[in-house]
């Protein structure tokens, strides 16, 4: 009974603090809302369409014009005409074009006389999506052009019309994109970006809240509220923030997989569990940081440096297996990495518990971190013997 009273006191006190200082709610709810709106609107197109491709047409025949028209008609690309290579190259270097294609002089005559004209590509892969899409468009287009010429050859050889299609395409690749059938870049990024933002918010806001007690010298009063029990004080604080953060996390999961219809093979309930575990693990990290370093500004700086790294080390863009080996090991120290692996199992393959139980265990381990620093944090709260600025 006493424990419950203590915790209730801390909870009410924390709610007062929120009323007094908007930073807690602005830093959590408003920030996550902004990020959600950003991700859902910024990547709205899914995959960029009409990548600008520069065309230098030195042939100017009906064949080259037909080629350009067909390229322009592709969903992937949009052509921009240039008089010479230099002008086009300037735009390519500026990153305004994904690539350039140069059609040679006498292209149409050379095709007809089987002299194999050379078509030249220049791709700018410093802008990686731009470059990849332009490359795909140009490759598809030249293969189509090759096939069109072959069709004529086979026709002259006397093959019947209905066989031509098979003849010009002896082998085809039927590609299936598992779990993201539309090849949607927005789904791919948002699915991990938003939880990574949530992790960042949890770590920062919670260590700010615990640090503020030291900074403004209110930590002794906090302990008075719980009659000197550090565990009760921490439980009370964590209760309020866990409700806030898991609420935000579950709303995020609902928005992604229910409202915005992101594809998910498994169950929504499992993702709820995943996001709750992510929040709890991040809270463990946060308490651990402020406990090790009960100096608000250092703890906040370390939290900031740590949580920004999570975006890279989750391995959702560049896979961790190609990172240097000690970085691969380091990635295990980030809850978002485990969340990413969990999400791969559940969202892409729907494996359920059998697939993600190792991640459940890993994320649970983070929750024991506060135990190591509880004593030290209590010391700091009672003695207030660390610099506050």
């Amino acid at each position: 009974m006493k424990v419950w009273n203590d915790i209730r006191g801390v909870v009410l006190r924390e709610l007062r603090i929120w009323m007094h200082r908007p930073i807690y709610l602005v830093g959590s709810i408003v920030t996550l809302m902004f990020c959600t709106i950003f991700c859902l609107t910024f990547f709205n197109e899914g995959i960029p369409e009409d990548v600008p491709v520069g065309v230098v047409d030195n042939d100017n025949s009906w064949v080259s014009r037909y080629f350009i028209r067909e390229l322009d008609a592709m969903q992937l690309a949009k052509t921009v005409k240039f008089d010479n290579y230099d002008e086009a190259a300037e735009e390519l270097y500026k990153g305004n074009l994904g690539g350039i294609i140069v059609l040679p002089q006498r292209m149409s005559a050379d095709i007809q006389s089987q002299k194999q004209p050379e078509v030249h590509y220049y791709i700018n892969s410093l802008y990686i999506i731009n470059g990849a899409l332009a490359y795909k468009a140009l490759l598809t287009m030249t293969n189509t052009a090759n096939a069109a010429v072959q069709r004529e050859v086979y026709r002259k050889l006397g093959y019947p019309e209905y066989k031509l299609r098979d003849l010009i395409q002896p082998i085809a690749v039927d590609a299936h994109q598992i779990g993201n059938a539309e090849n949607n870049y927005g789904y791919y990024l948002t699915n991990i970006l938003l939880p990574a933002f949530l992790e960042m918010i949890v770590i920062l806001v919670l260590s700010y809240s615990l640090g503020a007690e030291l900074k403004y010298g209110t930590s002794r009063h906090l302990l008075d509220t719980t009659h000197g029990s550090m565990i009760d004080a921490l439980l009370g604080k964590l209760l309020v923030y866990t409700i806030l953060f898991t609420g935000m996390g579950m709303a995020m999961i609902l928005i992604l997989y229910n409202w915005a219809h992101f594809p998910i093979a498994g169950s929504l309930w499992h993702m709820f569990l995943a996001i709750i575990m992510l929040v709890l693990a991040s809270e463990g990290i946060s308490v651990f940081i402020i406990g090790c370093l009960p100096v608000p500004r250092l703890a906040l700086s370390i939290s900031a440096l740590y949580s920004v790294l999570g975006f890279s080390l989750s391995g959702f863009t560049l896979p961790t297996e190609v990172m240097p080996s000690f970085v691969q090991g380091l990635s295990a120290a980030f809850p978002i990495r485990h969340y990413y692996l969990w999400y791969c199992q559940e969202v892409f393959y729907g494996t359920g518990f059998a697939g993600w139980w190792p991640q459940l265990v890993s994320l649970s381990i983070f929750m024991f971190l506060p135990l190591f620093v509880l004593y030290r944090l209590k010391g700091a709260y009672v003695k207030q013997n660390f610099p506050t600025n």
Partner: protein
Amino acid sequence: MEEEKKTTFLRTWFKDFWGIFLNEIREIFSDSGVILIYFVAGLAYPMLYSLVYANGIVNDTPMAVVDMNDSEASRDFIREVDATREVSVAYHCMNMEEAQRLMTERKAHGILYIPSDFSKNIVQFKTATVSLYCDMTSFLYYKNDLMGVNHVMIDKLGKIEVERYTKAGYYGKNADRLAHPIIVEDHSQLNTNSSYTIFLVSAIYFIIIQQLMFYGMSLLVGTQREENRSFASLPDQFEGHGVNRVVLGRGLAYLLVFMGIGLYIAFIVPSLFGIPIRGQFFNTLAALTFFVVDCIFFSMFWSSLITRRESVFVLFLFMSPICLFLAGSSWPTFAFPKFWKLFSYIFPSTFGCKAYINGTVAGGDISIIGGYLIHMTIQTIVYYFLACAMVHIENKIIRHKDELREIRDRLAAMHGIDIEKNVRIIAGEKGAEEYFKRTNKD
């Protein structure tokens, strides 16, 4: 007489300016938090990112193959897939279930399924279709699966056509000419292998400069405000004049610090990690200088919203990844929704990153980065005036503190918030007394 007045004005101006500059340098170097951000993070972060992304090319993505055909043609196809840079055939499976299991266990990142009629179709002049199942958990797996198999497919296509033409009576070079009527030459010199390192790290460098400067400056500004010695109170010593002196004097301190950090980030780190520097030295230097100056006034303006020391991280840290996307190197600028395009003009990094990528990494000359320099100049001018305005406004606020506090109390009373009671609940009796003593003293 006139002459004399002018010189004394200039002299005092310069004296004040110099004093503020020295004061700011002292502030920067006497704050351990700022030192941590500027000198520890500033030196370590570019290194760390370069290290994490040191090997940005994913080779030999493991693939599981299900060969239901088991013919010479299918084995040849598989062998060629294995030989590509992108894919390595790691598992030969008996059936799809086995391959699927390998994929969910993340041992294989793609499945190639060759149907039993594969070789028969080729012989019968029908299209032989192979199925490819790509792992979409990372786009680099997907890209490798697709590129590896497609390259083999295109190569096979040509070989089969040549064979067929040979059978139809075209020999040697003639058959080749018919099978490849157009030849494609790829001259992609900028980032030939689509290395993730060069693409991402070259954009991150300038983001790091901007964000570190902003966080450090906000930390200082927050501290000064907490201690009631805001930089905006400086003009008081000059009888209300000298907003320019304050802004420029402080700016010079950051220019000095950040040109050092900037040169390190823009030149030394990339050469340590093999990021190509194709641009000329002075072009990069120009881009860096314009960018740093722009960042200074940008940070001055936005940091004036920070009232307490640590709050900058809680409020603005999430902007770092967002700035990276707004720089337009990953998601192409032409695909930005209109609002976000306008929004991106707030940040110096939108132009700075491109100036660095296009000028330094790609090797573009001044005609290519000139546009970005002009944009950054316009931004600098706008932020300079905004920064001056903020100093001016804050100065007013400091002078009219008591009136403002009265307004706050009145508003609180109107909405039924009892500030005194709140403070007592949060900080306890003793804490509250201290709080009131402190606030009444000001």
